[in-house]
């Protein structure tokens, strides 16, 4: 009898651990997936606090001045994307969040934010728009934020700058034998180029014309043919700036961020990458959704792009996958991924705002942008 009692107790433990925890942690996911304003404004208000009192590069500890700068810049960029998405979905919130997007752009333009890129190139990205050099990440991400601001506020004071950046990016893309721009001298990342292409598509949408449709279409054809891994269907993380041959594996962090960016430029390619990522990288542990940084047969280390990689599962890839799940209508995966973000993110609610203790400014901004990514892609 004692054996039966112990067996039933153990069985209850196992069944409860396998079924209850992830559902508990995912309890807010349904409202976020449905786009309910209350759940979104809590996240947006948490990010607003970072925008109003932006963190210094010292808030991060990557061990590299460049990466600390990148992360400070990236936090503002993702904050702009998330706040703009909420403003576009809920027009009554547009005045407040639109103003915050403007503030994000001003932070991104500030010399301190731009210095990580300027130091690498030996020139300021905006001051050298007439030149030939890439600046793919800085200009692509900045131009995305500007494009979103123009959608929220058609009278955006950044519109003229957005047009100048767009002309420079399109001209450089057309001149590139790889149809890719360098992020830093000698460093070329396809995912940063998906941000460039998304920013050009957004600019056209905001301006109601198709000025950049042709160069974007040509670059997308090249991206699909040359930089999507034929075996896995994932996006190659880095390529040689001279030959375009892969310098890194096709990986989760790059692919899933590209799924989000490409939803603004090429819904079909975004979908194809999402399907590949879900197939090759998606997984569950006790119902909690996780995403591999590398395909199952590929060994690899964590780095600045992946964030911490634990048992093969990447923090960045798992977070970015939230956007793909929402954009491409995979609610079950969205719930399980959100459960993981909730469990390890440690949300802290205060005064109508939600922040994630483990996320900091970049984590909060990313989660806002990813969980509010427009279902079905931007309309």
């Amino acid at each position: 009898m004692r054996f039966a009692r112990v067996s039933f107790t153990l069985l209850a433990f196992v069944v409860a651990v396998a079924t209850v925890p992830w559902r508990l942690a995912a309890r807010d996911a349904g409202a976020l997936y449905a786009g309910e304003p209350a759940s979104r404004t809590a996240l947006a208000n948490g990010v607003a606090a970072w925008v109003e009192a932006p963190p210094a590069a010292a808030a991060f500890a990557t061990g590299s001045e460049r990466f600390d700068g990148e992360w400070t810049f990236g936090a503002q960029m993702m904050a702009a994307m998330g706040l703009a998405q909420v403003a576009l979905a809920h027009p009554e919130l547009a005045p407040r969040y639109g103003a915050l997007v403007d503030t994000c752009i001003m932070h991104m333009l500030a010399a301190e934010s731009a210095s990580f890129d300027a130091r690498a190139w030996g020139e300021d990205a905006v001051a050298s728009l007439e030149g030939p050099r890439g600046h793919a990440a800085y200009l692509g991400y900045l131009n995305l934020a500007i494009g979103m601001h123009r959608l929220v506020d058609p009278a955006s004071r950044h519109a003229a700058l957005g047009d100048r950046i767009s002309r420079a990016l399109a001209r450089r893309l057309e001149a590139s034998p790889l149809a890719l721009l360098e992020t830093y001298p000698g460093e070329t990342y396809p995912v940063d180029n998906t941000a460039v292409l998304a920013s050009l598509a957004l600019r056209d949408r905001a301006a109601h014309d198709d000025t950049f449709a042709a160069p974007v279409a040509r670059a997308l054809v090249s991206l699909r043919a040359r930089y999507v891994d034929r075996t896995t269907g994932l996006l190659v993380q880095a390529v040689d700036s001279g030959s375009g041959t892969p310098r890194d594996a096709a990986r989760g962090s790059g692919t899933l961020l590209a799924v989000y960016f490409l939803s603004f430029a090429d819904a079909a390619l975004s979908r194809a990458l999402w399907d590949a990522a879900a197939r090759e990288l998606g997984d569950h542990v006790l119902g909690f959704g996780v995403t591999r940084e590398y395909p199952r047969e590929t060994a690899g280390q964590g780095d600045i792009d992946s964030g911490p990689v634990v048992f093969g599962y990447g923090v960045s890839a798992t977070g970015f996958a939230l956007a793909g799940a929402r954009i491409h209508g995979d609610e079950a995966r969205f719930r399980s991924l959100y459960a993981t973000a909730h469990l390890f993110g440690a949300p802290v609610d205060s005064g109508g705002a939600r922040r994630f203790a483990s996320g900091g400014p970049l984590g909060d901004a990313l989660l806002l942008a990813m969980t509010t990514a427009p279902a079905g892609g931007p309309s």
Partner: protein
Amino acid sequence: MSRLTRVCLSLPILAVAAELLARALDAWGFGGKLLSMGTHTPLWALAGGALLVGLRVLLFVVGPGLVAAAVVAALARRLRPTEAVAGGHGAGGGLAWRR
């Protein structure tokens, strides 16, 4: 009260501790340090991260299992086989509520 039940009753205390720790770490700018984890991550952030994750896994993952196990164990103690009664009344080995 069984040991398992006592453990379950301590879960609310752990929940308060985890919430206070998360708020303190958030106030100290812990998230940025942890997410960019590397050789330059301060020791306090690594220790805080390990403690916070440990507490949350205990609460959210192990906790529901402990509660379910405690409930089943308590039910099992109440549901015991009746013993054969001399004289033939109520004889048998079936389960009956213990009184």
